[in-house]
């Protein structure tokens, strides 16, 4: 037997979760923090909402912006004073990114992470990355770090386009 109070609490939790899940990554606006796996949890206890997030990289400068956006979105959804908590463990991994999210990245012009994280040698390892523009696999890495820490810079030898690759970590 579900009481009316439980139902109301579930509804509030779902609404808070939906509001937080709308927040987009400021660097990759086609992905939400839920798509990325940055959003870990949304708890509602009485009037208090606590949103738990995890950074992609230790020094990710987007975290402050994301916190601000979460608080704003929740306030709009009727939850003033939401708390945002940052956890480091378990460490974020690109494995948490859904197939749908990977497809959104590709459509946006960023090559999604290849395969699963871990298991590759640290020294002189290489990924085969397909060009998000033409699909060609004759690509070369220009730099291990692209416009943000989570991306590397590549160039396609087939169509000549430079592109970002979302690194697999």
């Amino acid at each position, binding site marked *: 037997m579900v009481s009316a109070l439980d139902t109301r609490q579930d509804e509030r939790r779902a609404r808070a979760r939906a509001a937080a899940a709308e927040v987009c990554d400021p660097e990759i606006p086609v992905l939400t923090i839920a798509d990325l796996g940055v959003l870990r949890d949304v708890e509602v206890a009485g009037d208090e909402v606590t949103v738990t997030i995890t950074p992609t990289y230790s020094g*990710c400068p987007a975290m402050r912006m994301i916190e601000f956006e979460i608080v704003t979105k929740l306030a709009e959804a009727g939850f003033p004073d939401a708390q945002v908590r940052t956890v*480091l463990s378990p460490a974020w991994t690109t494995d948490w990114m859904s197939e749908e999210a990977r497809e959104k990245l590709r459509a946006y012009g960023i090559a999604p992470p290849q395969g699963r994280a871990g298991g590759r040698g*640290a*020294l002189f390892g290489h990924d085969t990355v397909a060009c998000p523009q033409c699909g060609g696999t004759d690509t070369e890495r220009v730099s291990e770090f692209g416009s943000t*820490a989570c991306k590397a810079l590549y160039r396609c030898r087939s169509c000549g386009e430079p592109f970002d690759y979302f690194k697999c970590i």
Partner: protein
Amino acid sequence: MAIPKDKALFDYAVRLADDQLVLGHRLSEWCGRAPTLEEELALANMGLDLIGQARSLYAHAGEVEGEGRDEDALAYLRSEREFTNMLLVEQPNDDFAHTMVRQLFHAAFMAPYWEAMTGSADATLSGIAGKAVKEARYHLRHSAEWIVRLGDGTQESHARTRAALDHLWVFTGELFEMDETALSLLGRGVAVDARALKPAWDSAVDETLARAGLDRPAEIAMLSGGRTGRHSEHLGHLLAEMQYMQRAYPGMTW
């Protein structure tokens, strides 16, 4: 100031934070000066990773101490003698070869270090390590590839990298030192045994130098002192710049 409840853990977290902060600050000094745009981005990104790691470690140290000092107080309001970073990370950027050799020496140590620390009995340190190990592996790959290009490049790049290896080699002994603080925490399953990382470091450095066509410098007497606050002349200058705003305008925020 009161002695922290767990002084060893506080000191250990702070020294590890100091290493990452000082090196992160050194990398930030390349902003606007890197040889190419791609390297500008890479150096800044690696600096951000390191400063991010330092922030997590300082925050943890502040909680362990329990005196209300936060990450900013620990980063900006301690003097040179209170910093306990290793000497390697405070050495000046000099030319690009020096910066990359310093990166290689540090990353080849930190990649296995963080990996070992993921098994720490301290849950916060283990959590920080779980993130940092992924970052350190990229830093290692980045610097190793540069050393190969520089060593195997022109006469000029080879000679500069050779000089950087010879100049910075003397600071690599300190990486593997274990003092009383580290040993006591090792006994509690908290700290990493740095001595045990020497074979992994040797093999990463040797493989890189072999590919680069560079010889490993001859063994010499090593310099150390950073862990007890005895630094080279360079740290004071670095801190003077890094801490200037908080010293001049205490409590100032952006």
